[in-house]
């Protein structure tokens, strides 16, 4: 009985290791394996439309509301210390350093990541991927690489747009509604935000998160059980795993950059 148990533990360990190895191999193949640019770029543009442009609406709307809510909450606390002038720096720094990249990554995992997984999973279930292989077309290059690179390029851009919209949302609440001075909002923000440290950290974080989220999404789709239950499980896995990894990595990156 004990031998049986050990066997099962061993099998599971090897399974996990094999999955991880598969994921790393796919990542390497996808990152370094693009075919001729004349074929690759039209595919990439199409995926950037699906992954980036179609995510823009949710990013814009949630950015606006998140900026507004930070400004509103921040104002309530700061005004009791007579420090409501610091609203601008608070909104800008919290968005640039944390909320911008993290919330974008979470939304991106939910909006684009799950769609990527489901699409690739369905391609696998309907044997489109197998038929590409039959025609001697590498599905990693033709199907996976454009999707991965599209996610990698689009997410930092989405994070930038998100942050800017949120800062304007904060301005809308702080200045236009609660009556803070417009000059104070912008000038104190400018005095405390530094390009290299704050905007730089936003860009670094969003590039890292883009890697993680699209990698998880693409791998979960490519690796899924080719059944309807398998696809639904893979889609759930994408959102859960990508979100958890993003939140964990965010702590590590913050500790590295600001600790």
């Amino acid at each position, binding site marked *: 009985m004990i031998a049986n148990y050990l066997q099962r533990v061993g099998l599971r360990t090897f399974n996990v290791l094999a999955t991880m190895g598969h994921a790393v191999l796919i990542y390497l193949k996808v990152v370094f394996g693009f075919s001729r640019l004349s074929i690759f770029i*039209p595919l990439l*543009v*199409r995926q*950037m*439309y699906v992954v*980036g*442009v179609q995510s*823009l609406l949710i990013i814009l709307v949630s950015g606006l509301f998140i900026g507004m809510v930070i400004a509103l909450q921040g104002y309530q606390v700061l005004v009791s210390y007579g420090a409501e002038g610091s609203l601008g720096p608070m909104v*800008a720094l919290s968005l*640039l350093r944390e909320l911008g990249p993290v919330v974008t990554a979470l939304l991106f995992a939910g909006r684009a990541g799950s769609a990527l997984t489901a699409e690739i999973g369905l391609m696998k279930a309907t044997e489109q991927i197998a038929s590409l292989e039959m025609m001697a077309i590498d599905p990693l290059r033709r199907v996976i690489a454009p999707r991965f690179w599209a996610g990698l390029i*689009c997410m*930092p*851009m*989405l994070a*930038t*747009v998100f*942050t*800017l919209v949120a*800062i304007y949302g904060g301005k809308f609440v702080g200045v236009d509604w609660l009556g803070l001075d417009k000059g104070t909002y*912008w000038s104190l*923000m*400018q*005095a405390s*935000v*530094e*390009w*290299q*440290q*704050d*905007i730089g950290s936003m860009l670094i974080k969003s590039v890292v998160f883009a890697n993680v989220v699209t990698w998880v999404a693409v791998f979960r789709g490519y690796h899924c059980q080719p059944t309807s239950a398998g696809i639904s499980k893979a889609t759930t896995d994408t959102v859960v795993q990508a979100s958890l990894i993003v939140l964990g990595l965010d702590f590590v990156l913050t500790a590295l950059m600001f600790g």
Partner: protein
Amino acid sequence: MDRKKQLQQRRIEIAVGLFVVLAVASLAILSIKVATWGMTGGQDTYTVYARFDNIGGLKERAPIKIGGVVIGRVTGITLESEYYTPVVELRINSRYSELAETSSASILTSGLLGEQYVGITPGFVIDDIAMLTDGDYITDTKPALVLEDMIGQFLYSQSDD
């Protein structure tokens, strides 16, 4: 059919192009309106040092100001090994290189609870007085006012009476 497909492809390309333009524009607005380039990066600077008796709550990267205008940043705070006096490394923009050696540095606080910064009062210039150059020490310094010390002195002087 082919024509229709081409048109659709073109519409997608235009949308992606607009998206890229939007992202680049947001980055530009963030850079111009929200952030400032750090004084220590890029621009030409020179470094001078100042010994203070007490630096209070001065931090690295605190601004250096003349009459409220930021001219540089504090880039290092160390203790001199021999007498254990704090030495502050001041990196000043080369645009403001005409500072006489008689200039004085003091540690000031912006507002009652604000951050601390280094205020420089430019000194007078006569013939034989040189300008501050890289590596020089500002000799005329005033330490930070520590509120606790002042309260202590005040209480002490009260009890004398």
